[in-house]
């Protein structure tokens, strides 16, 4: 039932269908999230969209500035004409069409929020640089997700895009059998306002969403919209089974966070109860009951709608989810832990604006154009009069002199990323793990006040797992900490390696990483996951030296009941401050982290 090897023809058909749906009413659907690498299938999809969308498909550059996105003062025109000239941003230009965001997983959080706001409101209000403007902005977003591993499109945006597609499993060279049909789109547009959706369908869509563990209410809402649009495409004025199934496949399945129970248990669920009370006439009218005998153990005539919908949704459950479930990882946390908001946000923070002052834009000082214009504005008539002879009449340029220049000051605030690497193995865990958790929570409380980013790595068994990418959301940290279970062997080297690579990533983003390692230091698994205490210890000390070499600040919390000298040695190799946990309470640990953060 899983989708480990999807049929290419089916994938292409869904892609074409998604384009048709989106073309009927882009704004209603929010857009489409496409998981795809750059390549012919993705290009094909974009070509289709460009041909069929009722408006433009505008590319969103990854690092677009806010003034280009929202619009604002047009500097060239303002300087040329001597009066304030506003300029439209990309969002307003895309009205009626869609914004194409490649590498959507790397979009800056501000940009994502702007997209979400536009999707929610369908209009754009701009209050920037002395300009107040409002414009219609009924757009859809085509988000191309190329994320690998933990990189994901921000949850807020994913939630708002109705259709989720994956083109990554298409074999090379596969091509679409059928292109989307403009005539169907036309028909869809004409019919849409008449399409009715029975209460039963709404109920089944809601049930299915709950059964798949989808918490957001937007999912069933968008599924209902897709069902209506699909019916319109097919030339129907009432939503029928195939429409609901398409909605489940395109909207609900890809959002699943758990796999619903098998059919045996289904009869206990409310769907079966609600079935008899629904009107029998409209359900039987949909499909001839005697077409062919369905191999349904429960109902004889035809599978009830909820089964059709659930099956359709299941066919689209991402393969990764099933793998995660098989491995026993918490299913809820895997799609959620995608909390990149924190990590992404940091990439743009190069200090925050801290006022404007006169000065020349040299070096890293940035010219503040609007304030410069403001400074120059009151003098324009005077200056024009002074220069009257030199200029032909009628041309009113803004004259800016050296004294007018204003530069924005930025307050450079280095951000800290505190990376916890917690030994959750049997030797350390159980009795100490609770204590370690308490210590982490105390440190977190301080991080919260300082607005630090926090990441959490746990190691046990054969390797280390990133439980939480750097985030500022303490709610999330707390949740993953609570889920942290103990037991198993101690892959210390893997744990240190994982923490170091995260620390180096943080440094690349301009943050100061601080590593907090909590372990009893008794490594018994080698870096490659093998057995052997001696080799494991050697690997661990090699990893520790790498930390020192990288110059990452570290705190080594020894969680052993009786601290041993070798552990202290390991901490020294790491260049870490060594603290045996038994002699410290949570507050003391937190103070140590604080002093590490603040050390020059």
């Amino acid at each position, binding site marked *: 039932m899983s989708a480990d090897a999807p049929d290419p023809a089916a994938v292409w058909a869904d892609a074409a269908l998604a384009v048709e749906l989106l073309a009927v009413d882009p704004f209603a659907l929010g857009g489409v999230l496409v998981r795809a690498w750059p390549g012919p299938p993705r290009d094909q999809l974009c070509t289709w969209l460009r041909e069929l969308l009722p408006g433009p498909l505008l590319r969103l550059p990854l690092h677009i500035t806010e003034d280009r996105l929202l619009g604002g003062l047009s500097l060239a025109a303002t300087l040329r004409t001597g009066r304030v000239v506003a300029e439209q941003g990309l969002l307003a230009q895309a009205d009626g069409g869609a914004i194409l965001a490649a590498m959507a997983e790397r979009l800056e959080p*501000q940009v994502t929020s702007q997209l979400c706001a536009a999707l929610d409101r369908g209009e754009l209000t701009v209050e920037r640089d002395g300009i107040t403007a409002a414009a219609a902005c009924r757009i859809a977003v085509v988000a191309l997700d190329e994320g690998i591993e933990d990189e994901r499109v921000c949850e807020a945006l994913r939630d708002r895009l109705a259709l989720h597609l994956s083109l990554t499993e298409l074999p090379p060279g596969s091509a679409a059998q059928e292109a989307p049909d403009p005539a169907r789109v036309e028909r869809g547009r004409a019919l849409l306002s008449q399409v009715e959706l029975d209460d039963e369908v709404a109920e089944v869509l809601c049930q299915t969403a709950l059964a798949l563990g989808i918490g957001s209410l937007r999912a069933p809402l968008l599924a209902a919209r897709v069902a209506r649009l699909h019916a319109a495409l097919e030339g129907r004025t009432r939503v029928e089974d195939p429409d609901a199934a398409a909605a489940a496949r395109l909207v609900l399945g890809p959002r699943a966070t758990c796999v619903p129970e098998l059919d045996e248990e289904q009869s206990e669920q409310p769907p079966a109860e609600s079935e008899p009370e629904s009107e029998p006439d409209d359900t039987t009218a949909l499909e001839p009951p005697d077409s062919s005998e369905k191999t349904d153990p429960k109902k004889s005539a035809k599978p009830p709608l909820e089964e059709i919908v659930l099956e359709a949704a299941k066919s689209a459950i991402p393969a990764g989810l099933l793998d995660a479930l098989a491995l026993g990882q918490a299913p809820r946390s895997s799609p959620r832990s995608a909390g990149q908001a924190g990590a992404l946000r940091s990439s743009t923070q190069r200090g*925050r604006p801290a006022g404007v002052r006169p000065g020349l834009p040299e070096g890293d000082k940035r010219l503040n154009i609007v304030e410069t214009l403001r400074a120059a504005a009151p003098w324009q008539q005077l200056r024009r009069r002074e220069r009257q002879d030199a200029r032909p009449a009628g041309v009113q340029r803004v004259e800016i002199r050296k004294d007018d220049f204003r530069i924005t000051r930025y307050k450079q605030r280095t951000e800290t990323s505190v990376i916890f690497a917690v030994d959750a193995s049997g030797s350390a865990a159980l009795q100490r793990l609770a204590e370690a958790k308490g210590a982490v929570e105390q440190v977190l409380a301080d991080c919260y006040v300082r607005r630090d980013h926090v990441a959490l790595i746990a190691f046990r068994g054969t390797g280390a797992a990133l439980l939480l990418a750097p985030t500022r959301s303490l709610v999330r940290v707390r949740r993953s900490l609570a889920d942290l279970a103990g037991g198993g062997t101690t892959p210390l080297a893997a744990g240190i390696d994982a923490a170091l690579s995260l620390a180096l990533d943080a440094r690349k983003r301009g943050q100061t990483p601080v590593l907090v390692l909590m372990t009893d230091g008794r490594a018994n698994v080698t870096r490659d996951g093998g057995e052997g205490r001696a080799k494991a210890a050697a690997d661990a000390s090699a990893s520790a030296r790498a930390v020192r070499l990288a110059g990452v600040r570290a705190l080594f919390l020894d969680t052993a009941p009786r601290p041993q000298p070798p552990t202290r040695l390991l901490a020294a190799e790491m260049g870490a401050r060594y603290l045996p946990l038994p002699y410290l309470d949570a507050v003391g640990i937190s103070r140590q982290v604080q002093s590490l953060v603040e050390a020059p």
Partner: protein
Amino acid sequence: MRNVPLFPFSALLAQDELKLALAVAVVDPSIGGVLVFGDRGTGKSTAVRALAALLPKMQVVAGCPYQCDPAEDGAGCVACSLVKASGGVRTAIEAPVPVVDLPLGATEDRVVGALDLEAALTRGERAFAPGLLARAHRGFLYIDEVNLLPDHLVDLLLDVAASGENVVEREGISIRHPARFVLIGSGNPEEGELRPQLLDRFGLSLDVKTPQDLATRVEVVKRRTAFDRDPRQFVEEFAAHEAALTARLRDARLRLRDVTVPDAVVERAAALCQALGTDGLRGELTLIRAARAAASFDGELTVGEHQLKRVAALALRHRLRRNPLDEAGSTVRVEKAVAQVFAN
């Protein structure tokens, strides 16, 4: 320019606490704003934006850029003072209560107001272009994703909201104008939290959750689908509800000054704050004010204990001395304290 109507407030399902909080803020704007945190897609923004359509109209001075109240003397307002000084008469007209959306990416000059660039460039005049704070005077200022707003803007907004006056000192302009508004902030804690220092600057706070029961969810989907199909007709269907709610809000505002708070209720409120160990008097004051507004909204002239109970969590949950990691804990703590205080 909006050709599609907004989803009506009275058609929103569940979220009773959110509706109560907004109603309380409308009835008594001095309560100090509402902070709405919660899951995605719970209708936070929809509710706040729909509120605009409900608000009873107000009287303003014609031509005043700050929508001054004709009943006040206008001493704090530059425009009104000018009219008075020149011996003119201020005429009153009816205007909608402003619900100003602070768009993401708004710059400081447009929020507080600044030198009018157009006038300066073309006419060489040094004029003041009022910002969003001026437009929000006597109304509501809504900030979606308040947790993503730059810190210096949040500070500025809270400062103005607390003082009721906007003081502008920039590029040679020195001006002050009244700016009393109800600040409504919303956000999703998973995308970054609000600085803890800012939490208790809001009068009321609440967490909205996605309804989990099937019946409510189905009804939400049904209503929204009906709205999608024919927004105008849907709005028409709820027009009577909306009008009734508007009338109820208007009556509640008029009634508010006559609503009395019995000593017993004040004592209960004090006991509640004591049990919870809230810092300062602000919590207690807000609690009583909110209960009073709730009573007025219920059409009563005396505050009862049930109103106190209903608003206790709204007014207090963000004022507890907290463990910042405690996500749902504060609501539970307030509920426990309520049960305890009202038991004896």
